[in-house]
Structures are given as C-alpha cells and as structure tokens.
C-alpha cells in the first residue's frame, strides 16, 4: 500500500517546527509502524536528505523508548500497544497519517519526534525506590506477600515509563506514571516503611517539573500501552492524603 505522511519536523527546541509531507511507498502489511518509518528514512538518506529523527530501541513494546503521536493519539490508538508493536495491517492504502512528538511542557522537544523525558527519571529519584542496600536482605521467603497484593503490585509495576499518559492528557498530567510507581512500592510490605515519604516526595517533584493536575478524564488509561488502571491514581491520592495528615 501507499501512504502519505504528515510528519512534524523541528531542528531543535529553539527552532520553529512545521509539518512536512512525504510519501511512504510499497508499505507491506507485516511491517511495524517504525519499520515503515525506517523505509521512509532509507529513501530520504538515498536522496541526500536528513532522515526523520525518532526514538526507539527494543522494538518489542517493553523499553518505553518509542513515542509517537499517530493521527492525534499517542502510540496510535490500538489498545495496549506501543508504537513499535503497531503494525501496518491496521492502516488502509491511500491513507494520510499525521505523526507528531509527545507534546507537554515538562517534555521539551529535542529534534523532530524526539522529546526529553528526564523529568520522569527525576520523579523516580525523588522517592521511587525501596532503600535496600545491596547485601543486607533477609531470605526472600521471610516476607510473605499475599498473591492478590503481589498481583496488584505487578499490575502497577508493568509501567514502561513511555510518557503516553502525559502526551494524551489535556493537562499534561503525569499522575498515572507517578501513581503506578507509588502503588507498586506502597502496596508491598517491603515498601511500607517509606510509604508516606515516598508519595509526598514523588508528588512534590512531579509538581516541580511542571506536569499538570489530574481531572480524571481517563484518557491516560485508554492510551497506556500496558493498560495501567486509573484506580492507582485513586490509591495514590489516598496515600498522599494520609501522608499529608501525618505531617510528611
């Protein structure tokens, strides 16, 4: 099939950006979306033009590096799927596809479709961990974790830190990302000791980075490639309220 792409091009954060139209020819159904872009880039290179810059690494939906807004939806709108796992069989011959970067104040643009998501790293650094020094751990079975608790923690821990939740949110809120990490660690008995401090520090950092507030439209849950539940935001709000009452 042949497609028309409208791709966001921007030299760097300071330069003005614009849409550029290019053609993707002889696209096969079995190609992934990124492989389609690879082919377009090969063609651009062959013609001496600068290829489209985009992030990707594992290309199996787990590293969270890929980040494209496709036809207005982060990761393209196929449920539970990151851009790299989206395949061309979901598109039609002759279609025009618009491709943009994540857009949020806290994710400054780097080049073309690449943004800087280091704000997420700083939120984790603020408290997204359990302070367990290497070497001092008791036997792993010394602490039992009820299966439902372990399963819920795993549901939250599945977050790949891609930032689609921020990109889709009209407030550019990072609540789903932060709630996923807070819930993963606060649910587990190992994480209880630092529970209050953790939620308080991570939320403060989130605010400092310039992410917006949550108005519960649930668009984040809808685009999340790991389908992280909105319920974790409710849990985080409760943990945050408790931490505040305790005077953290």
């Amino acid at each position, binding site marked *: 099939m042949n497609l028309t792409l409208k791709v966001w091009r921007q*030299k760097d954060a300071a330069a003005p950006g614009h849409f550029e139209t290019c053609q993707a020819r002889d696209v*096969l*159904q*079995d190609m*992934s979306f990124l492989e*389609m872009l*690879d*082919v377009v880039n*090969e063609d651009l*290179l*062959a013609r001496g*033009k*600068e290829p489209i*810059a985009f*992030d990707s*690494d*594992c*290309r*199996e*939906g*787990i*590293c*969270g*590096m890929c980040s494209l807004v496709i036809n207005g939806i982060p990761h393209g709108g196929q449920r539970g799927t990151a851009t790299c*796992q989206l*395949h061309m069989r979901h598109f039609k011959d002759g279609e025009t596809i618009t491709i943009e970067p994540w857009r949020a104040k806290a994710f400054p643009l780097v*080049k073309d479709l*690449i943004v*800087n*998501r*280091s704000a997420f*790293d700083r939120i*984790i*650094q*603020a408290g*997204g*961990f*359990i302070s*367990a020094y*290497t*070497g*001092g*751990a*008791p*036997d*792993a*079975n010394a602490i*039992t974790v*009820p*299966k439902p608790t*372990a*399963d819920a*923690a*795993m549901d939250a*821990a*599945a977050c790949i*830190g891609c930032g689609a939740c921020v990109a889709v949110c009209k407030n550019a809120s990072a609540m789903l990302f932060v709630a996923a990490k807070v819930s*993963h660690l606060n649910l*587990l008995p*190992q994480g209880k000791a630092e529970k209050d401090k953790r939620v308080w520090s991570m939320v403060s950092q989130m605010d400092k980075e310039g992410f917006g507030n949550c108005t519960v439209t649930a668009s984040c849950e809808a685009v999340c490639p790991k389908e992280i539940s909105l319920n974790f935001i409710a849990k985080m709000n409760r943990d945050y309220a408790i931490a505040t009452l305790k005077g953290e």
Partner: protein
Amino acid sequence: MNLDAKIPGGPLSQKWDKHRFDMKLVNPANKRKFEVIVVGSGLAGASAAASLAELGYCVKCFCFQDSPRRAHSIAAQGGINAAKNYQNDGDSVFRLFYDTVKGGDFRSREANVYRLAQVSNNIIDQCAAQGVPFAREYSGLLANRSFGGAQVSRTFYARGQTGQQLLLGAYQALSRQISLGTVQMFPRTEMLDLVVVQGHTKGIIARNLLTGEITAHAADAVVLGTGGYGNTFFLSTNAKGCNVSATWRACKKGAFFANPCYTQIHPTCIPVSGEHQSKLTLMSESLRNDGRVWVPKRKEDCPKPPGLVPESDRDYYLERKYPSFGNLAPRDISSRAAKEVCDEGRGIGPGGLGVYLDFADSIKRLGENVIRERYGNLFDMYEKITGENGYKVPMRIYPAVHYTMGGLWVDYNLMSNLPGLFVIGEANFSDHGANRLGASALMQGLADGYFILPYTIGHYFASAKIPRPSVSDPEFKKSEEDVRNTISKLLAVRGKRTATSLHRELGKLLWERCGMARNEAGLQTALKRIPELREEFWKNVNVTGGSGDLNQALEYAGRVADFMEFAEMLCFDALHRRESCGGHFREEFQTAEGEARRDDENFACVAAWEYQSPGRAPVLHEEPLVYEEVHMSTRSYK
C-alpha cells in the same frame, strides 16, 4: 602472554569465601577518593553502579538511551534461576553449578560458575527486598517454574516481564544513588574509546548524542556492562541500539576478546516476514513448557493449514529425538533441530522457515484460562506482530540470534588483561561456556553487578595504587583526536549506500556462513568477503548531517563500522575452533546421528584473541580449562 585466570586455590566450594577474605579492602573513609566509570545501565551496569556508590565510591554511569531504565535487559521475559530449592525437588548450589557447566558444553570456567550458583540465592533475596513483584503462591511464598531444559523448578519470574522488573529494581537503586549525589548519570552518551595510561585503564572518551560534544573522563577503573554483539548479524532479538562498539574499542586498545564464535541462536522467535525486518522478536522459551513443537511428516503437507494435518502425520521431532527432555531440550539443540527439519523441506510458513509451537493439547488439558494466565502477554505480542491468534492456530517460530556467550576475556575477579578494566554481564565471556541456559543471563548480570564486582574492584584499588591521571594527559588527547577523526571520516565519505544496507549485507553473510551451522569453506568465504564489505563501507557509505547535534545516521554508521571489524574476529575464532560445542556447530565435526562432537583433547580451552591492526589476523592466546570437580561428559538429552 600468560593468561592467568587467578582462580583461588582450595576446594571448589570454598574458593569464593576464601578469596573474599584474602582480597584487600579499601578503608571506608578512602573509598570516596576512587572514581569508577560504569558504561551501560542494564542489569549488570545498573546493579554495579548502585552497589559501588552504596559502598562509597564516586561513580559515573553512561548509557546511550534517554534513561537508564531502558537497557535491553528489560526485554528478558522468562525468569531468573537460583538454587533456593524452595520446591524441595532436589536442587542445590552444586546442581545449578553442574547444570550450567554441562549446559555450557564444558567450555566455561568451573570456579566462576560455582560462584555464580552460590550467589544466585543472594540475588533473589536482594531483589525481593527491593520490591521486585515476583510471582507468588496463594501462601504468599515465592512461586517457581521449570525453565529451558532444567529438571528442577528453580526459575523465579514476574509474569513474562522478569527482565523488566529486575532492571527496574536495579534502576531504582541507581536512581536513589543519583539523588544522593554519589552517581553522576550521563544518559544519551556513547563511549567511543577507552583510554589506557601506562598499561592501566584510566578513562573513556564519550560523545553526547544530543549536542555532539566529545568529552574525556578520567577514573581509577572502568567497568564495561555494555552487553553482547548479537547485532553483528543485523537481525537478532537485541534492541536496535545494541552494539559492540564499547567492547570492540577496548579490544583495539589491547583487551582480549574471548570465544566470539559462541553465539546463541534462540529457538523460539517469530519468523522473518520480509526484507524490511528491522529486528526479530523472541517469544519466551517458557512457552515450550506447555507448547509442543512439530512439523508435518511429509513435505506435501507443509502448505496445508495446520488443522488439516492429522495427528498421525505430524512429527513432534523434539519429543521423538530427545524423549527425556522433549520440547524442553536446550536452546542450541532445539535450534539446530528446527534448522534440520527446515533444511529437509518440512518447514512451514513463508519461505519454509518456520516450525509450529502448538498449545492445543495444553489448552485441552488445562483450559485456555490457565494458558492465558501463564503466557497471556506473549500470546498478545504474537498476535500484534503476526495478526494470528495463538490460542486458535499453532504459533510459528524459527531460531534467531539472541545472546552471545563470548565477550571480553576476564579473570576470576572480572578484570580483563588490561588492569583496571572490568567487564560484567553479557559483555564478558566468563560463565556460560559455549551455550547459555535459559534464565541464566539475568542471574549472571546481577551476580556480577551486585555481588562480585563490588568486592573485586576494591582489591584492585588497594593493590594497584596507581594515581588517576588528569584528562589533559597525552593519552586522553590522542584518543580524543582519534574519535574526532573517525567521525569526520564517516561524514566525509558521502557515498551512495546507507549504513543499514551495508549492515544488512554483513548480517546476511554471517547468518549464512557463520550462523547455526558452520564449515571451513563457508568461513573462508566470509573472511574473504568481510574486508571487501568493509572497504565498500568506507568508500561508499552515506551519512547525512553534521557532528554538532543529534544525528542518528552518524551514531549508527559508527556502530556499523565496528561490526564490520569485529565480524572478522568472530569468523577467525569459528574457523580456529575445529570442534562442535554448544552454540558453535561445525559441520565437519558431528556424530553419525548429527549431534555435536567436541574435541576435549585440543579445544578444552578459552580462545582469547588479541587485536593486531586493520587487515591483520588477530593473535591467539589460550587459557586451558581444568575441571577438578566435574567429569567432562558428552552432553546427552536423549
């Protein structure tokens, strides 16, 4: 040169304990005076950086991704082994050790593997304490499964995302140290050279991928946790960015590369669909616990839909050939068996390069829900890529390059022959011999980073006592200049071919001549063709843009240039090793039944290669492998 592995004396089971006592310590107050560079932030790199910082060392950690959380360890699905014996099924440190040595086809270092099995238990404790959400039983205790050819259930897992959860644990420990100011993190930064001053490794030259800025970093030691070289083959299960550059540039600075011909071809990957393919996707081999592998008995049946091939016309070839291990036969054996049936013309799917992995029996026995609970995410992934529903029709799988057992040579202390250069995780060669068992990569990466390197690096600091040079040292200046020259050279070619097309050609050549089965003539062809391809690269590659900003074409071309050089060493090693063992199968050396034939008399050794100069064959150094505890038997999974 004498390759001294520095294996401690004494009985096998006491070597590590004794060595830990014998090693010199660095005074706690002095640790902050030592600077360590860690390149790579995967399981090995992140766990090492975090643990070294906790001890008090000043750490700089580098990764090429935008965040240390994205290293390719994250993609490991199946699990991590440990000798806990929580299942009371007869496991022990000795059994895990023995299985690993045997699985590696008796080509690994006994003392290293024993230590790996010993610390495996500490890893599980550490990860559970960090909040890694391992699978649990209803009792709240940890769950285990049997995995990849093991006859005991010793694999711990977190759904199909074990690598992700272990990496996030290490990343979180690392993040904590970054917030404490003990680790300085350099994301989107690539190491482009290693700096050796008066025989000791003292720093690196790195390029900021966003600004193009080239900087020198001096340290008291450099740790490489930069992963394997699977992407030399172009198509592999590695991430797009995985590369050999860090280890190869260290090799060009004098570090020996050991056993590069030991490449693991994983049996359960999604088959190639066309020329556009940018990478291959692995399906966890845990699927083989419940899936049965088959092809039609007759060629004529291959184009038929699988449902129309009656039970009596199917060849469950793994169950037939290896009755005791069946579908769980180790990776090298399963991959080769798949190649054999496809070579016989009995492969299925596009190009006849595929075999079925069928869940119908398990679904009938356990119900679809149980299968969904165990492997749901893998079935979803399969459907996304192929558009087929694995619950209804058998999956199609084919082997692909996955893991590389070879790597930079290290001694028992994980230090290379270049003093001050430590190599951990997949980047070193040490623990898996000629073939790695499933769920052992995560174990080795974390063993090296959490529990081995933090001890041994201190011993180096306390014994070597070589002052840290400044980055104005001539060696730094020279390396920096070399790096700049290479970049200018790449940008100046302005040829007609893209780096991708040249890389794809190299990969195809290697896959055909140095892939699942190798022979002398094929390797000679490859060795003739690689220099030609390299010449073509330097004459005709087209890299657009400049060096002063983000330029992905330039980054990639630099990595391909290194693959082009490294590939030659890989083939030299494969040609030199005139035996078949593990992931290295030489067609000239097989039994009448087509099984691998080892030559313990001549090849029970590590082949460590010393780089010479462009176009000259590398020089071989051998480290004999001495087995004190185990008897070298013929691997049999029948």
